[in-house]
């Protein structure tokens, strides 16, 4: 166990929110075909409100802070927010499309000692990337920005969301990342839009194509380990929890809504109405999320994959129950190992159901 993992576990055990993901805006200069957000501004937190939230997060013990959006650089005050965050000594990671990062912005990010900049790149081919972002020359601009960031010695991660329209390009993006000196990650997760529109799910990689990814050692590392059949769950596994959502991690929207995770749209409170720590410590919803152990799961507790599945309680919640299965993860477990899941067996399916009806994050109404 690394020291960082050890401290993460300590925070988990103590119920300290060691990591927070904060979207500072949903506005964006790109219109990605798979994006689930409503890009209109419905009353984002002001600079002063965000600074106050950051003060509260520091007091609460948050160490890892991710700023994301929307596109964070569409906020004119983003550097002011970032400076405040670094003054409070957060470890800061930024998720961006980088289009608005020029030499000066890269230099300021270096001066502020940002830990990592994660940048979305969908393809190494401009015609594919730009068709996804719907912003002409966006790949060219993004690559130029990555070079500025790398020249400053900043750590860059290229995040490659994989979908039907770019499914053959991941090796090209990985090669591009290597050329740019950037780390590379691949994610095949597509979620529905905030208004519940599930049409974007048609962009998901069909389950039948997942084995090709899961059995590619260039993408998953040790295939033997990654694709190993599940081990019988131990007592410890059954008393374990799904993930850090609500235990040592949470998500804050641009409107001040607090959720257990960016992918877990269960409203737990609003920072404009309550102190962060009051929501974190006393929200009944947070407490409920925290209470769920593997043995409490309606279907998954009897599943052979229970100890190794990446089951996301947020996706399960979007499917209808935070104690239920997450079909997308059933699919991954099945195509990773070839062993059917309890969810599939219960439904008499020889392969997982693909498109599950999901809901997404909606702002909580805040009285004017």
């Amino acid at each position, binding site marked *: 166990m690394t020291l960082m993992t050890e*401290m993460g576990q*300590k925070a988990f055990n103590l119920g300290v929110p060691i990591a927070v993901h904060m979207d500072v805006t949903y506005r964006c200069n790109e219109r990605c075909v798979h994006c689930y957000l409503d890009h209109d501004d419905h009353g984002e937190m002001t600079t002063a409100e965000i600074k106050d939230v950051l003060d509260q997060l520091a007091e609460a013990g948050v*160490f890892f802070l991710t700023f994301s959006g929307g596109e964070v650089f569409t906020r004119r005050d983003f550097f002011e927010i970032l400076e405040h965050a670094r003054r*409070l*000594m957060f470890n800061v990671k930024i998720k961006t499309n980088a289009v608005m990062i020029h030499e000066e912005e890269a230099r300021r990010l270096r001066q502020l*000692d940002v830990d990592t900049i994660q940048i979305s790149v969908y393809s190494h081919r401009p015609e594919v990337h730009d068709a996804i972002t719907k912003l002409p020359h966006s790949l060219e601009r993004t690559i130029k920005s990555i070079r500025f960031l790398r020249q400053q010695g900043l*750590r860059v991660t290229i995040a490659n969301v994989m979908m039907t329209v770019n499914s053959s390009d991941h090796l090209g993006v990985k090669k591009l990342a290597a050329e740019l000196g950037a780390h590379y990650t691949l994610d095949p997760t597509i979620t529905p839009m905030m208004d519940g529109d599930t049409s974007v799910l048609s962009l998901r990689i069909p389950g039948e194509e997942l084995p090709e990814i899961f059995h590619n050692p260039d993408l998953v590392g040790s295939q033997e380990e990654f694709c190993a059949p599940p081990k019988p769950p131990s007592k410890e596994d059954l008393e374990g929890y799904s993930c850090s959502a609500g235990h040592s991690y949470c998500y804050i929207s641009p409107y001040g809504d607090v959720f257990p995770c960016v992918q877990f749209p269960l409203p737990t409170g609003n920072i404009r109405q309550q102190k962060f720590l009051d929501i974190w410590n006393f929200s009944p919803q947070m407490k409920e999320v925290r209470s769920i152990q593997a043995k409490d799961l309606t279907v998954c507790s009897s599943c052979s994959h229970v100890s190794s599945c990446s089951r996301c309680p947020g996706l399960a919640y979007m499917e209808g129950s935070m104690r239920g299965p997450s079909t997308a993860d059933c699919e991954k477990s099945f195509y990773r190992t070839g062993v059917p899941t309890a969810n599939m067996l219960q439904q008499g399916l020889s392969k997982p159901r693909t498109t599950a009806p999901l809901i997404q994050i909606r702002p909580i109404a805040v009285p004017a």
Partner: protein
Amino acid sequence: MPENSIYIARSSALAARALAGEMMVMNAADSTFFTMNEVATVIFQAADGRTPLQEIVRDRVCEQFDVDPQQAQADAEQFVAELSSHGILLVSNRPLTAEAPR
């Protein structure tokens, strides 16, 4: 300013936060991550660049922990030298400026 005073200040390139009495620190330059025990955390939190190390040891360390003052001073100087070599603490014989971790 007392003669031979050592002033210590935290580098601005750090991320730091206390977790149950232990200070977690990450150096932005090389992503090294480490933790400090309670005594080291007290010194690190007091490293405001204005308070001499001798005063930190006398008023904070010896006040809060049952330690021999001479041994505490020697250990503190060793701790400061080590963190300084990693760029975590800035050391000077004149006052410095520093950020405050929580």
